[in-house]
């Protein structure tokens, strides 16, 4: 028994633990997601995060110790953003023809998401710091952190809001689109990438290649627009 405890103490302090736990849990969550026909409620990120959070809490493992292993996965977010160039390049002709519509829809949707989040939060009496962390929530997490820092929010919270926003879009988007009706795969994908960044885009990429390419495009457009415009707009408040 003593040996086992020592062994666990050793394992839980190496980066191997965080990496193994993340990948094994995700593989299981992904298997469940496939088994239920990719139903939005079975979103693999949602369940992996929940299971890992419970696991860390129950075993008393602090988050930084977990992250020492998980950082190897986290690091790949950067190259993944660069890799979005590939689905864009494949559809370059179509995208060039529709560039005006795409930029306008991205601007309208991104502004609507950000302004409504801040306005609702303000109406509900949230403190200024939280409002400033809410503003960039529909931009992918690493970028949202940078923007929040620039406009006086809390970077770590901005990342949390961005992840929650992504999950909400990925889980509930399909039902909202079905309720509106008459939306093409392109419009659905583009909306998911705009309002729910990478997590929404990941869902779109799994469901349909057209939706996926438009979601990847929307994610890029949102990053460009938000990092250029948000610091300017925030100066007025």
């Amino acid at each position, binding site marked *: 028994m003593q040996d086992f405890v020592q062994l666990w103490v050793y394992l839980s302090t190496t980066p191997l633990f*965080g990496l193994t736990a*993340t990948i094994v849990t995700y593989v299981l969550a992904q298997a469940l997601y496939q088994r239920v026909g990719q139903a939005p409620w079975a*979103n693999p*990120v949602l369940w992996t*995060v929940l299971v890992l*959070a419970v696991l*860390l809490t129950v075993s008393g493992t602090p*988050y930084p110790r*977990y*992250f020492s292993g*998980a950082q190897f*996965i986290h690091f790949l*977010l*950067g*190259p*993944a*953003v*660069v*890799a*979005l*160039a*590939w*689905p*864009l*390049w494949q559809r370059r002709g*179509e995208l060039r023809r*529709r560039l*005006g*519509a795409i930029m*306008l*829809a*991205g601007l309208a*949707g991104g502004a*609507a998401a950000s302004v*409504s*989040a801040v306005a*609702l939060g303000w109406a*509900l009496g*949230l403190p200024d710091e*939280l409002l400033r962390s*809410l503003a960039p929530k*529909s931009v992918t997490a690493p970028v949202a952190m940078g923007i929040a820092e620039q406009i006086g929010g809390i970077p*770590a*919270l901005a*990342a949390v809001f961005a*992840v*929650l*926003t*992504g999950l909400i879009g990925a889980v509930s988007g399909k039902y*909202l*689109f079905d309720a509106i009706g*008459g939306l*093409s795969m*392109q*419009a659905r994908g583009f*909306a998911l990438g*705009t309002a*729910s960044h990478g997590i929404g885009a990941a869902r779109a990429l799994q469901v349909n290649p057209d939706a996926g390419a438009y979601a990847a495009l929307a994610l890029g457009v949102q990053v460009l627009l938000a990092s*250029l415009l948000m*610091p300017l707009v925030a100066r007025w408040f």
Partner: protein
Amino acid sequence: MPILIGLAWLLVCQSAGELLARLLRLPLPGPVIGMLLLLFVLAWPRVREPVAAVADALLAHLSLLFVPVGVGVMTHLALLSQYGMRMLVAIVVSTWIGLAVTALVLRALLRRAPDSA
């Protein structure tokens, strides 16, 4: 081997993006500039096959990459429980507004100017 060559291209573009962002003080994050650089590099046919191999592999599991940040939510449970319901309302409702506005605006614009091809 193609995957490794493709990964090298992604990392080179990302590093160049980080350098440009810092040297020119651009307001854009390094990986986003890297994405724009890769779009130019892809005009060269030899690059396409390796980049396609690694991009398809990486983007197929894009959602896995958000797990480490997502688990970080647990470090903010105190704040979340203090303002939890109000923040959740603001986040959920604004996400739906963002989704609906984007989809409806794009649909209206594409309908007005249908694809000529």
